[in-house]
């Protein structure tokens, strides 16, 4: 791979229009399913995939100019839409501290149409969503045990509001709000949690 292409300013700027994911395969069996799915035979390998995760093609030339063109062409074809969600807890913490906002974890149930639900939640929250860093976490079903224990989730869906200024915010949440109520009630409770956060400034 052309040394430095991913440190090129124009590449970095272009890549912000798509979703760059680093798939670490350092440990034996790490991300094995993804490696198999995309037929990875060596490292590094870069694959472009569509929003549903279907392979578009493998990256061709590794020159910065070529990468920028590839990415710009794909971003023009798939322009995307903005979203209020952060996609990992560490990232949410980083954003919460930087933007001075509380974190609203949305604990979801397994087996739902998550994309549809997240868009619906965003729509229901309206302008209030801008006052929080939203992040989805699995709250029920396979793979949710760690989240349930760490965050004290009893039932999903629910919101858990955290203060990122604390060292271990999950140990002392600002609020736990059942999300299967009318949106006006949920919003009111989120506003209450927001006030608590602001009063601690």
């Amino acid at each position, binding site marked *: 791979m052309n040394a*430095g292409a991913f440190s090129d300013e124009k590449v*970095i700027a272009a*890549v912000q*229009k798509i979703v760059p994911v680093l798939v670490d*395969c350092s440990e034996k069996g790490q991300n094995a399913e993804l490696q198999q799915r995309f037929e990875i035979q060596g490292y*590094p390998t870069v*694959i472009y995939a*569509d929003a549903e995760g279907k392979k578009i093609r493998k990256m061709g030339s590794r020159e910065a100019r070529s990468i920028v063109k590839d990415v710009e062409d794909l971003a023009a074809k798939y322009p995307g839409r*903005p979203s209020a969600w952060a996609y990992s807890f560490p990232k949410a913490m980083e954003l919460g501290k930087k933007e001075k906002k509380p974190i609203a974890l949305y604990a979801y149930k397994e087996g739902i149409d998550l994309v549809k639900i997240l868009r619906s939640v965003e729509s229901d929250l309206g302008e209030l969503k801008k006052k929080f860093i939203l992040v989805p976490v699995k709250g029920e079903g396979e793979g949710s045990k760690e989240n349930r224990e760490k965050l004290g989730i009893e039932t999903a869906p629910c919101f858990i509001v955290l203060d990122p200024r604390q060292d271990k915010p999950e140990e002392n949440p600002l609020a736990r709000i059942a999300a299967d109520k009318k949106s006006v009630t949920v919003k009111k409770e989120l506003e209450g949690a927001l006030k608590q956060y602001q009063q601690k400034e």
Partner: protein
Amino acid sequence: MKSLILAVWSLVVFTGTCLAQEHGGKVEWIRDPEGGFLKAQVEQRVLMLYFTATW
């Protein structure tokens, strides 16, 4: 002596460049594939999947 210093310096630069490249340069990579795929789906954006290994 000069050529030795030059050789060592070249090796340092080359190694540093390779390491930077191995770790994906300065792009702000999402390091959680599940989160990345979800983000792409919700935002209807293209994914760039950088498969790498460091040994």
